[in-house]
């Protein structure tokens, strides 16, 4: 079996972050979070444990809603969704998320798709995992240009949910709403604290020598590269195809080396 690919590290980290949830919802353009949720379900199935429900927007296979696209939000409002993912064109040190655009709104210099359900789900879903592969100062900024969803709310504002963790292509952070701010939990293989500091536009707490993000064992990898990738193909065909190509390339590289 070839070495663990960076995206596989992320997918496995997501599966761990989701451990214990009864129901996780995944947005329409989120193949890595979806893969993480599917991996968790596959691991639970193997262990004979209760399976988490997974709702993937836009999927037919992985979606049990029958009341249209409003049902996800109603379900979350009722407290029936434990975890959700948010990306962000910009994310700042207070956990604020910007999905709308860079520069002065509304004439944004760069326009992103829009806030989607974030301005609601961030308030009501207990375990929101912020996920963005690109870890650069242009993404992780001191202050977002537009608040699609705020990291914390003033006292007296209805708030049952919010940021739980921030996962990037370089590391994993936890969120402390009392600060409010992020704390670096672990660093992915191939990166270090200096690298992360230079790539992050906000201050964050950290150990002097942060630990490395845990890697998946062989059985987890086999599940991920087999059943999970097959499941993923229905909703994210282009992504699944790319993952397969990456494996082939990695395998060929291994053959060359050996």
């Amino acid at each position, binding site marked *: 079996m070839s070495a663990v690919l960076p995206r596989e590290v992320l997918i496995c980290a997501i599966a761990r972050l989701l451990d214990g949830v009864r129901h996780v919802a995944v947005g*329409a353009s989120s193949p890595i979070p979806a893969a993480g949720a599917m991996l968790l379900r596959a691991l639970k199935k193997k262990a004979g444990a209760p399976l988490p429900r997974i709702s993937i927007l836009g999927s037919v296979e992985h979606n049990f809603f029958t009341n*249209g*696209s*409003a049902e996800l939000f109603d379900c979350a409002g009722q407290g029936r969704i434990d975890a959700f993912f948010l990306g962000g064109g910009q994310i700042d040190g207070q956990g604020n998320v910007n999905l709308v655009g860079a520069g002065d709104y509304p004439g944004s210099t760069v326009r992103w798709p*829009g806030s989607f359900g974030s*301005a609601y789900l961030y308030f009501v879903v207990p375990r929101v995992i912020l996920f963005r592969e690109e870890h650069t100062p242009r993404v992780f900024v001191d202050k977002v240009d537009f*608040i*699609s969803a705020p990291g914390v709310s003033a006292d007296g504002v*209805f708030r049952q949910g919010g940021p739980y963790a921030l996962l990037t292509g370089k590391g994993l952070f936890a969120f402390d709403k009392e600060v409010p701010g992020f704390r670096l939990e672990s660093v992915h293989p191939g990166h270090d604290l200096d690298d992360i500091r230079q790539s992050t536009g906000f201050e964050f707490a950290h150990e002097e020598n942060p630990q490395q993000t845990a890697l998946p064992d062989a059985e987890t990898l086999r599940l991920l590269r087999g059943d999970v990738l097959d499941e993923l193909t229905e909703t994210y065909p282009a992504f699944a195809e790319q993952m397969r190509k990456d494996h082939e390339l990695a395998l060929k590289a291994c053959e060359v080396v050996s």
Partner: protein
Amino acid sequence: MVTTLRDMAKQIERGMSIALPVDYAGVSMAMTGPIIEHGAGDLHLICVPTGGLQVDQLIGAGLVRTVETSAVSLGEAGGAPRFNDAVKKGSIRVMDATCPAIHAGLMAAQKGSPFLPMRGLIGTDVLRYRTDWRVIDNPFADDPDPIVLIPAIKPDIAIFHAPVADRFGNVWIGRRRELAAMAYASTNTLVTVERIVEESLLLSETTAAGTLPAIYVTSIAEAPKGAWPYGLWGEYPTDTAEILRYARAARTAEGFEGYMQTGLMEPAI
């Protein structure tokens, strides 16, 4: 009731508000060409709750004044090029929303209520820029409890695509209830379908539960593969390669024109 795509497009008048569904719910891509050909501009698009290819193409064709939406994107194919360009140039006005707020506005209209309250939003710039939304103090709470009110959204026309209609104008929408929500809230609803059947969909309990009754439907027209290159639930998958091809072509205004003119509005059946 049963008509043609071109005749349906003629019901659109300059300045109207048009509700269009999310890319996986049943987008009537077959109507995009006739709408552009008809040419009624200055449209106010309401994306339920987000927009994609159709919205991007209507913007690219210069027919759109305002987009009320929670997002516009081409999904896996990336950002919506004509939308992004129009925002940068300031040639369209965007009323940024969040998905459940669009649903709340339609739900208010469905009930004939002036507004619906919803959680979340407080402290966001989405709320800050939506001067048409209000924050009140929950009158039922003992302690101060601010909550947002979303006014009813009443589109002039809803347009979507579904697998089946019967000749009486009943449309089978299955579990895609946002299509019903759009129709309830809108003055007129134009539906394209894969096929029109003879027998009433209301005769069987199995199909009746997932059927939008004709009372909410203004016109239907047959359009096989009418969601292409989007997929249609239970019928055919999304043609991702075609959407990627559009995404590449429409990076420039010229590329967009070229794509739209070369007869690519026809599905490759």
